[in-house]
Each structure stands twice: as structure tokens, then as C-alpha cells.
């Protein structure tokens, strides 16, 4: 260990300094730190991987086509043959509607904020702040909003469309923020080039900015939808119906959804329910993780690095 004992008055003796380079210092702290950081990564993701594997094992017996071809049953004696088809279809209904409601509104809002709003104006700043705030509001509060305003005040009742609107509002900030970032990543030079050719604002936005931002928007949108798929809390407050043996057939139909179904299974004490819950979780995870993978792939593959 050659701690340089150098005062401010002197510097390394130059004639010796060539050799001094080879007296490699051993740095145990260095190694320990690296290992500690590596351990954090391994522990965190090892535990996560272990848990997900555990769910898979737990639900293994239920992982067959019964899961999506069979309806839930109200008969404890027939749990073995039961599935979660109505919940799966309900989830697909809801998510399609969320896409239809949330994506246009979210993308248009983002265009407004990024391209049109003069952010020196108080109302635009307030708008922006409002969206950032909404992004942090707990999902259960959206359930209260849905119950009081959308189901009751607007009279939409306890239907697929109510659930879709509530979840749309819940993930709207996610779509807006992701879209804004994608739009912001389009270099100013592209806009300037377009304006310099005599294009109007909307021409510039619709023909240059949006096409370039598509990968980022797609990524954000898919992530938002997959979040909506997994949400249970607002639906609990909304009083999602928990036992349904038919698939939704319209906007005003009753529904249940996978996370809700899983939650009710979890609260039952028979072990068949626990297994069924695990099976349904694997199904839910498969959907959510597949969507997230697509999103991340799209981003990494298609997003332009300007």
C-alpha cells in the first residue's frame, strides 16, 4: 500500500514514478462494494424470479385449457372443472374499450401540451401540474370517482363501460406523459425544417412529428393498457360483480375481470380456490408480461436515436 505521502509542497519524485505505477494497490473496499451492488441486483431479481416461479408451480395443476374454456362455478364440489372464462373475456372487453377511450384522448392531450400550449400561461401550467398529480393519485380513489360520478351521477351503472371509463381515466396520465416524451424526443430540427418549407402547424405535427413519435407512443400506450389490465382496487370499490357465468355482450353488460376474480379466490379458504387463483394469476401475468415485452421491444427496436 503506497499511500502517497505528498504534501502540498512536493510532488511524486519523477525519476521513481515509472516504477511506482506497478505497485498496484490492493483495494478491498472496491471489491466489496462491487459485490454488494451485484448482490442487490441478484437478491432483488432472484426473489422476484423465485416468487413468480412459485406462483407458476402453485398454479401448475390448473394450467390447461379449462382455465379459459370453462366458466367459474358456484358449486364447491365442482371447482376442479371450473375456469375463469368470463373474467378473461371481461378483461379483454374492458381493455379494448380502454384503448378506444384512453388512447385518443391521451394522445390528443399530449399533442396539445407539447405542440400547442404556451407553457408560460398559468392555465397550461396548471393543466400540466394536474396531469402529473393525477398520475400519482392512488387507484382506489379512482374507484370512488367511478362509483360516485360515473356509475351514479352519469347513470352508467355497474357495467363494462363504467369500468372502462374509470380505468381509462386512471391510466390517462400514463399515456399523456409517455406521448409527450415521445413527441419531445422528435428533434426540433425536424419541425423547423417543416415550417421552413411553408407547412402549417397541424401539417408539421401530423406529417412529421407524430409519425416519428409512433414507437414511443406505442410503447407508452401498451404499458398503460397493461397497467389497466392488472388493476383491481378501483373495481373493488366500483363493486365489480364477482360471480358471472356468461361473457359480457355489450357496453351495458355486467362483467367481472381477472384481477377481481383472483382477489375473490384468494379470500376463500379452500385450497382449490388458492390453486385456481394461482392459475388465473399465471394467465394474467402471461397477458401483462406479453404486452410489456411487446412495448419494450417496440421501444428498443424502433425508437429512433436522433
Amino acid at each position, binding site marked *: 500500500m503506497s499511500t502517497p505521502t505528498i504534501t502540498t509542497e512536493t510532488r511524486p519524485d519523477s525519476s521513481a514514478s515509472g516504477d511506482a505505477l506497478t505497485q498496484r494497490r490492493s483495494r478491498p473496499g472496491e471489491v466489496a462494494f462491487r459485490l454488494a451492488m451485484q448482490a442487490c441486483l441478484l437478491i432483488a431479481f432472484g426473489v422476484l424470479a423465485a416468487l413468480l416461479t412459485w*406462483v407458476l408451480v402453485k398454479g401448475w395443476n390448473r394450467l390447461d385449457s379449462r382455465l379459459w374454456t370453462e366458466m367459474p362455478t358456484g358449486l364447491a364440489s365442482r371447482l376442479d372443472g371450473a375456469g375463469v372464462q368470463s373474467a378473461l373475456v371481461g378483461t379483454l372487453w374492458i381493455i379494448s374499450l380502454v384503448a378506444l377511450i384512453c388512447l385518443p384522448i391521451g394522445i390528443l392531450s399530449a399533442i396539445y401540451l407539447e405542440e400547442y400550449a404556451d407553457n408560460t400561461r398559468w392555465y397550461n401550467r396548471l393543466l400540466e401540474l394536474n396531469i*402529473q398529480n393525477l398520475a400519482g393519485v392512488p387507484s382506489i380513489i379512482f374507484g370512488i370517482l367511478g362509483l360516485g360520478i360515473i356509475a351514479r351521477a352519469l347513470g352508467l351503472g355497474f357495467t363494462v363501460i363504467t369500468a372502462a371509463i374509470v380505468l381509462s381515466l386512471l391510466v390517462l396520465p400514463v399515456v399523456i406523459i409517455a406521448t409527450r416524451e415521445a413527441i419531445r424526443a422528435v428533434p426540433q430540427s425536424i419541425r423547423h425544417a417543416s415550417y421552413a418549407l411553408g407547412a402549417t402547424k397541424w401539417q408539421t405535427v401530423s406529417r412529421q412529428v407524430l409519425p416519428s413519435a409512433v414507437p414511443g407512443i406505442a410503447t407508452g400506450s401498451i404499458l398503460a393498457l397493461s397497467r389497466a389490465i392488472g388493476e383491481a382496487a378501483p373495481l373493488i370499490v366500483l363493486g365489480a360483480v364477482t360471480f358471472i357465468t356468461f361473457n359480457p355482450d355489450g357496453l351495458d353488460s355486467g362483467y367481472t375481470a381477472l384481477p377481481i376474480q383472483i*382477489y375473490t379466490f384468494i379470500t376463500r379458504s379452500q385450497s382449490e380456490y388458492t390453486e385456481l387463483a394461482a392459475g388465473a394469476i399465471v394467465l394474467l401475468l402471461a397477458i401483462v408480461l406479453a404486452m410489456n415485452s411487446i412495448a419494450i421491444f417496440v421501444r428498443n427496436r424502433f425508437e429512433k436515436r436522433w
Partner: protein
Amino acid sequence: MSTSTSNAGSAAGSALRRGRRRPVDSTVKVLLVAAALVSVATTIGIVIALAQPTVGFFQQVSIVEFVTGTSWTPTFAQKAYGVLPLVAATLTVTGVALTIAVPLGLGSAIYLSEYANPRTRKVLKPIIELLAGVPTVVYGFVALFALNPLLQRWWPTDNGPAFQNLLIAGIAMGIMIVPTIASISEDSMAAVPRSLREGAYALASTKMQVSTRVVVPAAMSGIVAAVVLGISRAVGETMIVTIAGGLTSDRIVLNPLEGAATMTAFIANISSGDIPVGSLDYDSVFAVGALLFLITFALNAVSIRMVRRFREVYE
């Protein structure tokens, strides 16, 4: 106008006057503003949905009792409306979650950003982001049926943790938050300009010194924002605590080995319970909801400020 001629010079000046109408452009703008107003309507909707029952609640229960009382028993015959037990349970769970998530998340981020080779990072970063999307009901399930038996089995003393307890909910929540904290902190570390690292290496720093003395401090506002986001996710998380956290609320529980109701768990339970809607007890849900809304509001304010500072440093 034909392609072969350039604009006639002398007439060009006056041709600049606004002549053309652009109806598409003005229509579009109306549409965009309308879309942007949806989020405002959402906030107003939330406030309305919370305000009316909350006001009703506070006409019968004093605000002072609500914010200072140490027992919350609206569903019992002897009613008490002190919200502190719910707040305490929320803080306890959040504390446990952060104790796990902050070191693991930060450590992972440092490893990924400073040590891992680019190929490893390219593989691991998306996986982290993927894991951040696991629905919370899954963590609740895992907490109750996987972590809890482990905890009970390995607990060193006889007096083990309750079946539903804040510790297990906190651990599950911590595991849930790790990817978020890791991912956002890694982003902010990656945003620390290369030039700063080079500057530090050129001053004979070791890798650990560069990480801890230059990169982490420089990325601090991003890291703090990640942690604040983690806090607000923990505070607002419902499913894990509902499934695994317990429902006790008659007293302030600070021992994480006991079960207790968080604000969110209380709301979720009452919403599916048997008490008459519209009663005072039922309205307590909205009072708690309003408090939760205010708390996350404050957290957001902190987080937004942090993110802004983090943006300012290098842009």
C-alpha cells in the same frame, strides 16, 4: 402556380397577407383543447365525489378528533373516528417497503449503470421494466401464501407474526417497488454526463469513488424522485395490504408483526362490506379517501419538484 416559375418578385410582398383560411388547423385545436380538458374534469370529478360525503362526515365528526384521535372503530358500537391508526399502519408498511426497496433498488441501479457491461445492461434493464408491470394482486397472493408461511416457519421465537401482518405486506410491497426505484434511478444515473465520470477518472478515482462520490450525488434529485414515487406507490397501494396486511384499527399499531388496516385497506374493505350505504360509518370511507388524496398530492408536489431539478442540472 406552375412548377417552372419562381414567384414574381414585385407582387410577392403583398401576397404575404393572410388570405388562406385554414379550417383544419382551427378545428384541430378545439379538439386538442377538449381532450386536454378531460384530465381537468377527472380531477374535478374526484374532488366532487370526495367532497360531498366528506363534508357530511365532518358535520358529525370533529376534524380535531379525526386528525388527532388514536382509535378508529366506525364499525363498532363504540365508535371512534381518529384516523391516526390508519395513517400509522400506512406509514409502517411504507417504512418496511422502503427499507427493502431503497437499498436493493439503488444497489441494482448502481450495478447496472456503473459496473455491468453494456450487454448485461441491455438484457437486464428491459427485464426490470417488465417486472415493474406485475399486477399488485399477484404480490398480495404471494405475500399471503408464499412469504407468510416462510416467515412463520423461520421466525426465531414462538411468538411469531400474525397471519396477516404489516411486515409481510411491507416486504411484498418492497419487492414490488424495487423495479421502479431501480429503473428510475438507473435512468437518472445514466443521464449523468459521461464527461463528469471522465473528469473523476482522470483525477485517479476508483470505480467505487466515481459511483459514490460523483454519479450518485449528481443523480440525487432523480434518485430522490424515484424514492418519492416509491413512497407514493406504497401509500396508495391497495391490494397487497387488503390481502395480507390485516384490518385492526382500534389503536395505533407500530409493530410490523401485527396486522393493521391502512387507509387503502380500510376503504377497500368497507366498500365491499355489509354496512348501510349513506350512513356515517360508510361516509368515513370518503373522509379517509380525501385524506389519502391530500397526502399523495403533497408527495406529488415533492416528486415533481425533484424531477424538475433533476432535469435542470444538465439540460
